[in-house]
């Protein structure tokens, strides 16, 4: 290996860097047992259990028609918010973000890669949950484009909030808070419990949560065959602007 180390510096093409980074982040996520519990096991269990056993009164119609859109919203929440917050919090804590900050990968490309990794994971979740829902007798309606739009805006909203948490709190605090928020939104966000069950005052507040907007919007399209749920899209856009803006402003890399 003579003159093996002779300098020959250069950055890889940015598309290749993003692809490599996104692949690595996705592998890290799929390899992490706790993350899989959150992103795959819990949504799957909730969907099968609550569809086959009549625990919660989900209103008129088949339970799965109510639950499937809610669980899809939960899947987006688990990956874009909880999973991303915890992973990024520990990357910050272990100096991964710092080290990548000295590599040729630009920050915007790192964030792009993270988003790609979140979207790939969501596609895997959605495919799995859809197959299970069909097996449980799900009959979805509506405009697929409205569904895609809702999921993308929901992802943006949850990513902003997750990154805000990861970039400002200690990793352990992020871990605890992200799980707590996941649990609270699971119960109070119209995922498995219809918001109609809550008192009017609480309900009008809960309806403004991003998870409620996403589950309500998905349900309006997939169960009721509504067109584009503008109100829910508006709420998600508001959270996305707020969350991403605050994350961009307050995120600390070290």
């Amino acid at each position, binding site marked *: 290996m003579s003159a*093996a180390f002779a300098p020959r*510096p250069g950055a890889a093409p940015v598309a*290749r860097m993003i692809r490599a980074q996104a692949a690595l982040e996705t592998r890290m996520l799929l390899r992490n047992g706790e993350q899989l519990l959150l992103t795959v096991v819990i949504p799957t269990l909730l969907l099968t259990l609550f569809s086959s056993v009549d625990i919660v009164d989900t209103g008129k119609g088949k339970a799965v028609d109510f639950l499937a859109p809610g669980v899809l919203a939960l899947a987006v929440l688990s990956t874009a918010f909880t999973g991303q917050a915890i992973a990024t919090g520990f990357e910050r804590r272990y100096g991964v973000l710092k*080290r990548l900050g*000295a590599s*040729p990968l630009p920050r915007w490309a790192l964030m792009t890669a993270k988003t790609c990794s979140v979207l790939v994971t969501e596609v895997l979740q959605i495919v799995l949950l859809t197959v299970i829902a069909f097996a449980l007798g799900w009959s979805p309606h509506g405009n697929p484009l409205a569904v895609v739009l809702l999921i993308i805006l929901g992802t943006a909203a949850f990513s902003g909030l997750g990154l805000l948490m990861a970039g400002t709190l200690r990793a352990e605090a992020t871990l605890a808070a992200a799980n707590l928020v996941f649990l609270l939104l699971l119960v109070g966000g119209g995922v498995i419990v219809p918001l109609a069950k809550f008192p009017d005052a609480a309900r009008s507040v809960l309806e403004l949560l991003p998870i409620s907007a996403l589950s309500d919007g998905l349900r309006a399209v997939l169960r009721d065959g509504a067109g584009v749920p503008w109100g829910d899209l508006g709420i998600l856009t508001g959270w996305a602007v707020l969350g991403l803006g605050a994350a961009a402003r307050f995120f600390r890399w*070290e």
Partner: protein
Amino acid sequence: MCSAFSGAPAVEVHGLVKRYGNKTAVDGLDLSVATGTLTAVLGPNGAGKTTTIETCEGYRRPDAGTVRVLGLDPVADAMALRPRVGVMLQSGGVYPGARAEEMLRHMAALHAHPLDVDQLIERLGLGGCGRTAYRRLSGGQQQRLSLAMAVVGRPELVFLDEPTAGLDPQARRATWELVGELRADGVTVVLTTHHMEEAEQLADDVAIVDGGKVIAQGSPEELCRGGAENSLRFSGRPGLDVSALVKALPADCAAIELTPGSYRVSGAVGPQLLATVTTWCAQHGVMPDRIVVERHTLEDVFLELTGRELRS
């Protein structure tokens, strides 16, 4: 391609000041690193070594002073510098769940002309743990992976922050060898260390940092020659009259019996002093055994300059 401007320094720091709150970590530091050399930044804990290096790496903005790396501003020109500069952090920097080989391949993928990853893994003795998750690697393996990550992109300049901290002697040798090869192949190396031996063995240039300033800079030889005294040791029969020996020596010399039969003369040791000591021995019927002229080590210079008391 990198030695085209070999006349210009690879790193130039002038009057660098960096404060954290009301604590001044770096206090008017000057440092110049010639292209193609290996410079060791030596200093006690808290001297300002890491802050200085991390300012050069673009992680911190100077409160005062200027920093130029390869002629560029580490913060403003970060995107131009990053592919050209290799960085080894003091700790961390790897996904805890990533495997050693996976992480190194990833760093390679971010560069246009990376080194052969398999050879590098072999070279650093990481072959046996390529499939092991980072968090399960030993401290020494983590250090070597971090070093590999710094060099895999074929940089023209590398900053290594305590590259051998926590390594066993074999791993330290392996790291020294690799660092020596980097330099031989034309890579400019800046490393921080507490190990005098490391600086003495590897460095063309040593900068001793204390209290946020460079208090001495030069080649190990220059630093060892300057200022400090040398000493001469010999063995003889126990209980020699040391005070009589001192009278025979020049005024600024001292002599003591360290342990019975083992003597040390300290002062400006030269041919004349050596002759004086052996003459005195001959006159007193002493056969001086094992005469050793002790060269001043970098450690002596370091302790002399930075004081012997423990730092809090």
